Structure formats: structure tokens, C-alpha cells
């Protein structure tokens, strides 16, 4: 069931992509994330699990500064991408978000054509100089999103006309079109049926070869299937972080154990 050995010491380690130190997040007076330290590796799928409301989404959204758009949200501590503080004044959050792509819980294609959906990011970042280059980028992204074969004949049709699972893969294609280094996914399968979920999970496994993927999921089976590292959050704390196999078979913290055995959450 688990594709990594139970013992974390023998696992292959990749270089650290994102390092978080003493991260605290507040919504007004609500303390949503408390002193979280975590290291997210390159070319690895890291899963965030935990009961609902424990701050998984909040922490995920810190990683591409999506929380900046919420007025009352305040982030403290250090989050570094490739060793560079992403909250430093010199960092432009808009550019950061192109480098750290995001896929949301509910598939949210733009009400535009499939082509436009994927081409939008590269266009606003000036990644293509000619139409042919843009076509190429769109095709590459759709192939990486494992949806090219299904939509190649109807690129001009609206993206909102696709099925839920196709929409979500389109959104993944849209996210990878800007050549990000990290891909954040917030419960990407929770609005999908089991078959579409299986397709997206397969895709996530492929994406691991090029990207660092962070996925929030409420399904422990999913975390076990797709991730190599797992972080367990509880009430804003990062309770346990380690190899997925170890978390699921041999959790150190009693809270983790109760959660994965279904006693809390």
C-alpha cells in the first residue's frame, strides 16, 4: 500500500524546496497556525492531513502568499523558497504565484475557451513571443495535465463545458503552464467522482517527476496513495511530519495515531 519504506532513514531525500520556520498565521484574533516548522522537498509529493479547520488550507496558502488577498490575515515567521524569503519586500507576490502554482478544491476554469484558460498565465507573464510558441506551451501544459487527448479537437470550446474531472485536470494544466517549481493543491479531488479522482491521482504521481507537489487532502487513503511525505496538522499545530509510510504505520504522536485510526477528526 505504501510506496516508501516504513523507516524514514532509508528513504531517498531530495533537496529542500520550501523551508518554513516558526510560521504563525492570524485571522484577526484567531490564531490559525502556530509555530509551524516544515521542510518541503523537491520532486516529492507532500500531503497535509488533519481534521477540518486545523489550518491545512491556511498554511498551504501561505506558500504562495495567497493569504495576502485576505485583509485580516497576518503571517509571521520565515518561509523560504530555494533559500529566499518569499515574504521579503523584494519579492513580488504576483511573480511568486507563477512560480508556485495552485489548484483549488472546486475546479474553477475561467469562463473562456480551453485554450484561453491555459494560455492566460503564459500570456500575462510574456512567456511566448509568437502565436506558435503559445500554441506549443498550451499543448505541453495540456499534455502534462493528462487531458490533451480529450480536448485537442475542441480547444476553442468553453472550459466550463468539460466534466468535473476534466475541468480539474484543465486547472492543473493551467497551473503548470507558467512552468512553476512548486504545485499546491487544496483538496483537488474532493469535488470529483472516484474515476476522476483516480485519474488526477495518477497525474499527481507523474507531476512529481518535475515538481514539488503539496497536496491537502481529507482522505488518508489518498495521502497514503500519492504522497511520500505527510504532515499532520491539529488545531493549528504541525503535530507530526515524516515519511508517509512511517506516519501511517508507526506514528510517534498519540494524536496522529488517534486521527489515522479514526478516533478524532
Amino acid at each position, binding site marked *: 500500500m505504501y510506496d516508501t519504506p516504513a523507516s524514514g532513514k532509508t528513504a531517498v531525500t531530495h533537496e529542500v524546496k520550501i523551508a518554513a520556520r516558526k510560521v504563525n498565521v492570524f485571522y484577526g484574533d484567531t490564531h490559525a497556525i502556530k509555530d509551524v516548522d516544515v521542510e518541503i522537498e523537491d520532486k516529492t509529493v507532500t500531503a497535509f492531513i488533519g481534521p477540518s479547520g486545523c489550518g491545512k488550507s491556511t498554511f498551504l496558502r501561505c506558500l504562495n502568499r*495567497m493569504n495576502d488577498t485576505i485583509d485580516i490575515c497576518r503571517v509571521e515567521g520565515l518561509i523560504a523558497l530555494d533559500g529566499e524569503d518569499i515574504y521579503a519586500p523584494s519579492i513580488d507576490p504576483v511573480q511568486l504565484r507563477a512560480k508556485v502554482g495552485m489548484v*483549488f478544491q472546486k475546479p474553477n476554469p475561467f469562463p473562456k475557451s480551453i485554450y484561453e484558460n491555459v494560455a*492566460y498565465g503564459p500570456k500575462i507573464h510574456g512567456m511566448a513571443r509568437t502565436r506558435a510558441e503559445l500554441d506549443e506551451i498550451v499543448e505541453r501544459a495540456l499534455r502534462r495535465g493528462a487531458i490533451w487527448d480529450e480536448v485537442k479537437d475542441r480547444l476553442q470550446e468553453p472550459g466550463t463545458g468539460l466534466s468535473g474531472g476534466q475541468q480539474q485536470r484543465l486547472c492543473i494544466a493551467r497551473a503548470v503552464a507558467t512552468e512553476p517549481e512548486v504545485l499546491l493543491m487544496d483538496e483537488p479531488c474532493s469535488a470529483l467522482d472516484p474515476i476522476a479522482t483516480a485519474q488526477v491521482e495518477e497525474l499527481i504521481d507523474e507531476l512529481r517527476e518535475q515538481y514539488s507537489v503539496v497536496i491537502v487532502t481529507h482522505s488518508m487513503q489518498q495521502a497514503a496513495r500519492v504522497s511520500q511525505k505527510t504532515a499532520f496538522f491539529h488545531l493549528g499545530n504541525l503535530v507530526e511530519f515524516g515519511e508517509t509510510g512511517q506516519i501511517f504505520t508507526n506514528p510517534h504522536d498519540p494524536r496522529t495515531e488517534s486521527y489515522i485510526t479514526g478516533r478524532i477528526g
Partner: protein
Amino acid sequence: MTDQTSSGSFDWTAPEFAARLNKRKRSQIALKLAGLAAITIAFGMLFLLVASLISTGRHAFTQTFVQIEVFLDPAHIDSNDPARGNYRQVLTDTMVKLFPDVADDRAELRRLTTILSNGAQFSIRDSVVADPALIGQTVAVRVPVSDPYDQLNKGLIDRETPEANRRLKDDEIANFDLLKELGMVSKPLNRWLITNADSRFPELAGLKGAIIGSFYALMTCFLLAFPIGIGAAIYLEEFAPKSRVSDLIEININNLAAVPSVVFGLLALAVFLGWFGMPRSAPFVGGMTLALMTLPTIIIATRAALKAVPPSIREAALGVGASKHQVVFGHVLPLAMPGILTGTIIGLAQALGETAPLLLIGMNAFITSAPATPFDSSTALPTQIFIWADSPERGFVSRTSAAILVLLTFLIFMNAIAIFLRNKFERKW
């Protein structure tokens, strides 16, 4: 509880439950009937209004004309200066030819010529000025009859009324009947109601000036209120930091929408005309005044439309690295546009019917030509209705109703566009 026979604690078949059930049913029926009655009353009122407008206004949609042969006598019209010719005499001569026995009685003759509209001489003059070669020829022209004869022809003057109380005496009626017998009288559709400007004579008065004035005023209003309203709404909704100041602005905008329109008229009178010395009665100034009123409507509608765009679309765009302004102008605004347009059209429809502020800046002046530019003096549809409703001539009664119908038609048309837009672009997310 599900098994009442065994538990016995709750008997659903007891008579008091049946009574309660009946009571509930009765109150439901009563509520339904009350609603039905309310709707019936509302529609009844509306029907009454429209029916009374149509029953009086329909007379203004036709106009009585007489077909006469006019000899353009060179003795009265100088071909070097056709504009100054004595066209009244030309028309009198024409009437003399029709009624030879009154030729010597000047007073009779004068009464006879009042069959023709006072404006007839001017329309003949205009065609002669346009083509002086007509002088010396006999031309067939169709001229409107004056208001009393128009009323007579439409059956609005009762022939049974004692002569002393009647606007037209027996001999005048006889004269007109003669013309009718000769087949010279016709009653075509009154397109002049739309193509003529205002006039002292109801048979010549039309809405052209008012329609063009209203059009200019609405255009001005739209060109000012639409961009400013959208700009303000976007700033308030998307960019303004939430603070006490923005709360204050918000409250004030909502209050502004509730300010009586006459207040905007007074403001315009003091500021636009008083301080800036803008022209009186100009549709441009009227439009600026209406823009003051329409602005809060557009701001509120735009903010509602922006708010209705689901956050998932903003997140999607932000997620691929769009900046705030790219999100707003590339995604949110286009999706909000149908809602914004709907709100704007409804705001403009309101402005179209607005009377008080236009009265205050003098758009109820008597002006007999349509404005060539938005800076010329003019009336607007509602103020024209106001003027006509105030005019004593009988012919203006039906024209007032007709003008109201024209205004209502424009309003219905604009609201239909708004509804069409809303239905066509309505989205299910």
C-alpha cells in the same frame, strides 16, 4: 413516536388535530386569496392607467388634413424674395375659390380661413422658398386643419350641444361638412407627432425637440455616470482599504440614491447655472444633473455585480500570477458587465422619466425647434408632457396622453433590454 398505536403517547387521529389541520388549510387559502387580490388590484390600477391614457391619447395619433389647390399668385409672392410673400392671402384666396359666396364679407372670410391651421402658411412658404419655380403655379397641398376642426372631425365636439356653448358655430360646422363632402378631408396617421417640434398650435405640436433633448440628456448622463460610476464602484469594491472612511463613503452613496431628485435640480441650478454659468434649458446641463442622480444607482449596481462574481474566479486568476488589476479588468469586470449594464439601463430609464430637476434648470421652456447640439435650449419628454398638460387648448389634452404613451414606450423598451441582458447573460456557477 412512529408507532403511535403501541406507544399511545401521541394520537395523530384525535379530533383536535383534524381541527388544527383544517385551520391551517383555511389560513393557507386565505393567504393565497389575499395575494391574488393584491395582484388583481395592482394590475387593475395599471390597466386603468394605460386604458385611460390610450383612450384619450389615441386621438393624437391621427391628424385631420384638408387637401387644397393653392394658386401661388405672383401678385402676393415676390420671386426675388419668396420668404416675405403674403401666404396668408394666398390661402384666403384659395378659400374664396371654395366658398365664392363669402368673398365680400371680410369677417366671414377670416372665420373661414381658421379652418386651416395657422401653420399652413409657413409650410407653404417653406416649400416655395425651397423651390421658387413654383411661383405662378397651382399646387395641391395637404394642410392640417386647426384644432377645433380636428376635434370636430374626431367626434370630440358634440353637435347636439347648444350653439352658444359650442366652440364651432353651426355655419362653421356646415363649411367643414362641405369640405368633407367634397372628399378633401383626410385623417392620416399623425407621424408629425414625432417629426415636428413643439408649437403653440396643438395640431402642429410634436415631440421631436423633446425626444432629441431627452436623447442628448441621456447620452450626457450615460457618458458621465457610466465611467465614473464603474470607476468608483471598482475602487470601493476591489481596492479601497476597509476603514471608517470607506464605511462613511458607502453610507453616503446609499443615502445619495435616496435623495429626492428635486434637490439635485436645485444643486444643478446653483452650481452649474449659478457658478459655472452654463446655459439654461440645455440638454447637456440636464444630462449632468441626471448623472448626479444616476451615479449612485450605477455604483450600487456595479458593486453588487462585482460582488456576485464568485471568489473562485479571482482565486484562479491570482493563482496563475495575475496582478490585482489584471484580475479585476481581465476577469471580474467582464463577468460583472451584464449586471452592470442592467443596472445602468434601469438607472437611465429612471433618469428618462425624471421631471423635477429638469424643470429647475429650465428645460420647460417653449422652444419650437429641435436642438441641433446638446448645448441648445430644448425640452425633454417629461418636461414636454408637463408643458402640454398645462396648456389650455383642447388639442393638447390628447397630445399630453400621447406623449406619456411615447415616454412609456421608451421606458418599456429600455427595461426590456435590461431584462433581456439579464436573462441572456445570467450565469449559474
